[in-house]
């Protein structure tokens, strides 16, 4: 094929140029032009792959096929919308981070081998952490570090997996594999971290609410969906994924209900949505995979729209805590409308995008005989509506009036949200356009039959009734400021405390045990320090005499080996 430049590489190259363009309209126009050019390239590039050699290994730095193409398209759209949303920003560090992030994610999509995938996998981590650190401040710094450690762990697992994979198969090609060998497990875990598998998920809810207003919009688009792509490519029809996915859809909704920080609510709901996609990949029929891909496509749009609307509120009000908001429909009616459209989409109202992409997954889970899975997914769907569909718009724009009177979101934010909202509705109304781009043919599948529509409407309306009932009866838990402990408590609190406490009171494992452990460590450290410190055996400034002795010893050893 003609070596056209890959869209991801275009963005990466553009990211390097950004600092040299004067801040302001010139730079933002440039940043908007990049994804548009990328879309043009995507249109021009035919299916195929580019073979190359790296360090003596046959690699495929670029591969384009149906699966990669649709993900590339949505990533470019998301880049464009996020960049438009960030028009007002004058922070070079964020601009460069965001475009390295987006470019790396796109390049990872078109990576045809594990080595290239690993390289961009790590670059994704590096670029994205900049969007958290750009918030500046101590909390953001620590949060970014935790985030980076998780991402790097994922990268190292992928690297180890790639090495073993090469040893097992003699190839680095990134194609479908089965969970038969250690290498596949390592790669699976690497993908799992980025996809937010249960117990590996905490970085999402930890980091996304800590990003900058515009940075979180970028963050919500790429990392996790890249992992979904990787799972769809590497582990389609892996049964374990179905159960993992179901757990992912269920447990976050409980947290989403009680969480006060709206961006964290959205992060939990993001995790839940990923669960639907993972289930679709796990079922693995062409229709289910299509559903997962379509869901990822729609999800990127409506989830970023949700983050945009909450971000716009944050931009004007200065906070995204439910306790501090309310009654904002008076000041920001347009933002409210866009938020409601996104909420309707994520709740899978008929005529909105979520509906047409979630339906295939649900019907395939039923069709595949996974009854329990289907029941749980239905529960999760109701839960999604509850926290994302109702809670987010309700507590932001309605509920009790916070008394805050602010200006409507700035024009460029409204524009970005407007385009996203238009896409949400357009896809919901005319799904065939999306279906036509999916990797497998959809046949005459349609989400709009009476059973689907009425069933879904019923589910949603009665969920809303439940919400109304609970609100009116006063049973609904009031919003309160606070932090909710999740699994990350174990490493953020327990382990940290355990390491920090030397003579403190009993924590979990008991003071004495830890005192003992720390005591041993203290001894080991002092021995090591003496060993390596000044005058130590391994320390600097040793006299020449002892070195000569070593020479003699080594020579005798060598001779001993030789003569023995």
């Amino acid at each position, binding site marked *: 094929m003609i070596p056209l430049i890959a869209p991801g590489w275009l963005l990466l190259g553009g990211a390097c140029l950004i600092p040299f363009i004067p801040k302001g309209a010139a730079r933002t126009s440039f940043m908007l032009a990049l994804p548009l050019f990328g879309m043009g390239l995507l249109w021009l590039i035919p299916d195929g792959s580019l073979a190359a050699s790296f360090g003596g290994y046959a690699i495929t730095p670029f591969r384009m096929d149906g699966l990669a193409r649709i993900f590339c398209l949505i990533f470019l759209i998301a880049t464009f919308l996020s960049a438009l949303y960030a028009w007002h920003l004058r922070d070079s560090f964020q601009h460069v981070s965001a475009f390295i992030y987006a470019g790396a994610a796109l390049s990872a999509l078109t990576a045809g081998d594990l080595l290239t995938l690993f390289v961009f996998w790590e670059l994704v981590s590096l670029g994205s952490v900049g969007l958290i650190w750009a918030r500046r401040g*101590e909390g953001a710094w620590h949060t970014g570090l935790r985030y980076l450690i998780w991402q790097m762990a994922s990268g190292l697992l992928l690297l180890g997996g790639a090495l073993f994979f090469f040893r097992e198969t003699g190839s680095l090609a990134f194609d479908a594999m089965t969970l038969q060998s250690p290498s596949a497990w390592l790669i699976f875990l690497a993908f799992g971290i980025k996809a937010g598998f249960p117990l590996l998920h905490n970085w999402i809810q930890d980091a996304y609410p800590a990003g900058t207003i515009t940075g979180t919009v970028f963050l919500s688009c790429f990392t996790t969906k890249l992992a979904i792509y990787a799972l769809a490519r590497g582990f389609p029809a892996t049964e374990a994924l179905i159960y993992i996915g179901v757990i992912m859809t269920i447990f976050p909704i409980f947290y989403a209900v*009680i969480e006060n920080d709206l961006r964290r609510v959205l992060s939990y709901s993001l995790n839940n949505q990923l669960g639907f996609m993972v289930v679709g990949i796990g079922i693995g029929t062409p229709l289910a995979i299509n559903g997962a891909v379509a869901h990822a496509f729609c999800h990127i749009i409506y989830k970023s729209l949700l983050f945009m609307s909450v971000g716009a509120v944050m931009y004007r009000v200065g906070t995204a805590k439910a306790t501090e908001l309310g009654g904002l429909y*008076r000041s920001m009616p347009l933002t409210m409308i866009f938020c409601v459209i996104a909420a309707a989409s994520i709740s899978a109202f008929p005529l909105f995008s979520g509906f047409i992409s979630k339906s295939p997954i649900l019907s395939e889970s039923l069709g595949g005989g996974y009854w329990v899975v289907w029941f749980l997914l239905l529960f999760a769907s109701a839960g999604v509506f509850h926290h994302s569909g109702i809670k987010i718009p309700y507590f932001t724009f309605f509920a009790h009036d916070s008394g805050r009177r602010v200006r409507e979101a700035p024009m460029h934010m409204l524009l970005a949200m407007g385009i996203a909202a238009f896409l949400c509705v357009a896809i919901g109304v005319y799904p065939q356009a999306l279906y036509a781009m999916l990797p497998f043919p959809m046949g005459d599948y349609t989400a709009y039959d009476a059973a689907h529509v*009425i069933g879904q409407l019923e589910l949603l309306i009665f969920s809303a009734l439940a919400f109304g009932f609970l609100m009116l009866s006063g049973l609904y838990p009031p919003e309160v400021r606070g932090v909710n402990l999740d699994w990350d408590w174990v490493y953020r609190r327990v382990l940290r405390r355990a390491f920090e406490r030397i003579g403190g009171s009993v924590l979990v494992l008991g003071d004495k045990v830890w005192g003992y452990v720390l005591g041993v460590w203290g001894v080991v450290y002092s021995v090591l320090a003496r060993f390596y410190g000044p005058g130590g055996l391994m320390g600097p400034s040793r006299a020449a005499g002892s070195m000569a002795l070593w020479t003699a010893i080594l020579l005798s050893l060598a001779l001993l080996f030789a003569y023995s």
Partner: protein
Amino acid sequence: MMRRLVQKLAFLEKNPRRVFRALAALGGALLALDALLWIAGVYKNIPVWHGLYGFVMCVALVLGAKAMRHIVRRREDYYAPRATDSEEERQP
């Protein structure tokens, strides 16, 4: 146009029970339609099930989460200074 929308919403906000009743009416209509279609044999789904399931599960979800909050909630500065939760949001 926006102003009229805001006025309408303000009216609804002051009368939440009306909204609830309207929703309940809509739900009832949907249930009826569902049952009718099932009787007419348009499809084989279990009728009415989606609605009841959605209602019950949502109540269960909220009450479950409410109970869970007793266990998992901590003060906002619990992780401070290593988290952003208690950091003052930067004003625009």
